[in-house]
């Protein structure tokens, strides 16, 4: 097995995963994206992801947290926003 080509392949997958992370994608989304767009075997993506996770535990921990937070937060924010708008518009109509 050619080690250097494996290594560079893995590096490439790593790179792609990072791109997905910037998109805030989950692992599954990432696996799918890499498969769809670059024909990377899902098992490879997922393995590289796991290994990345091992090496960068803190990052991924924060990432996970953020992911779950976003689900809630975003709804809250939406609600708040809507509330604000409603109150704003009702203020206007009071004038």
């Amino acid at each position, binding site marked *: *097995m050619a*080690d250097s*080509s*494996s290594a*560079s*392949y*893995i*590096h*490439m997958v*790593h*790179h*792609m995963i*990072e*791109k*997905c*992370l*910037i*998109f*805030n*994608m989950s692992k599954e*989304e990432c696996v799918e*994206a*890499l*498969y*769809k*767009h*670059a*024909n*990377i*075997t*899902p*098992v*490879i993506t997922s*393995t*590289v992801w*796991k*290994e*990345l996770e*091992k*090496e*960068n535990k*803190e*990052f991924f921990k*924060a*990432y996970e947290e*953020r992911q779950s*937070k*976003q*689900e809630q*937060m*975003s*709804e809250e*924010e*939406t609600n708040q*926003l*809507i509330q*604000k*708008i409603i109150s*704003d*518009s009702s203020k206007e109509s009071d004038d």
Partner: protein
Amino acid sequence: MIASMESQEFLGTSCGFTINPEEDFPEFGDLLDIIDFDDLLGVAGDVLPDLEMDPEILARDFSDHMKASSAITSEKTDSQGETKNKGISGRGKEVVSKRDHNETPVVETVVNYNGDSDCKRKHSSSGSTKNKNNEGKRKVKKVDWTPELHRRFVEAVDQLGLEKAVPSRILELMGVHCLTRHNVASHLQKYRSHQKHLLAREAEAVNWTRKRPIYGLDSTGANINGRNKNGWLAPTPTIGFPPPPPTAVASPPVHHHHFRPLHVWGHPTVNQSVIPHVFPKHLPPPFWVSDTPYWPRIHNGTAPYLPTLATGFRALPVAGIPQAMPPHHTVYKPDHGYGGSRSLVDLHPSKESVDAAIGDVLTRPWLPLPLGLKPPAVDGVMTELHRHGVSEVPPTAPCA
């Protein structure tokens, strides 16, 4: 010894204490190494090349240092300008020079600074000669430009105006004692060239947006300013809530982008909390990472920050700019954020953006990693893959 003599004289005049070579340095061959550049340069920090400095600590430590060093100075002058190198006679407290000396057999002991507080310089405890490299080979110490430090720098520059921003004034405004003018000057140079770079990109971007009106977006002033100030290093989340939706919802597609820009890259805190963590400092990564989150948000028909990519010309090779970030337009997904399925602030990237990003890696693998995470252990990956029945990487068999 001539050089040494000169140095000594220089030392003598500039720092207020004298060194008597015969008395004090009988053994020292190379006085250059002994010269305390800190005193020379009048800075408390930047001593060691691998210094990582937090400006707050620096400011704090500097004052500690000043107290300590004035103590030393008085000691020195007391003992007739014996320098700290001579850890001898009649001194209760032996002062160590702030860096090690290669050749000296003289014992150096650590002065009782408050726990080595001064700008994190590392004191050797006993004449060890390990730090050869900071002996005067580098008069300018490497500064670690933390986001905080850079922010102050940018503030100072902004106050002065880019034209008038001279290192000395910037230094004053920043009020960080541990920087030398040289540090500031080189940082300024980089900053200026970066700004030019940005402007060039923006100018291009404006042209693109002119041609693609549907992607015109409003940008808030905050974004632009945020970009200016923070675009270089870790950005602060200047993106707040989008402008009130009702008008946006009712209006033509243009306005939809208000929401898009908010979270193309996910929660703004990503940029702050996540990226600084993972960024290895030796890379110039913030350049890439921090730029990108703002790209999609900051463009409109007239705003300057639109990157070329943003209008969908993602194949366009803009020199020097990693097309790391997907084009903005591709992020636009009308079904998101309005259907109510997901909130306004967490929008999935469109397929095109993802495709572009991934394609980028395929076509330009030399580009730096956008996040710079620690790479996985190749062996670990291979072992794991073997377990799953994958024997070849890259697999030659068709993707299952």
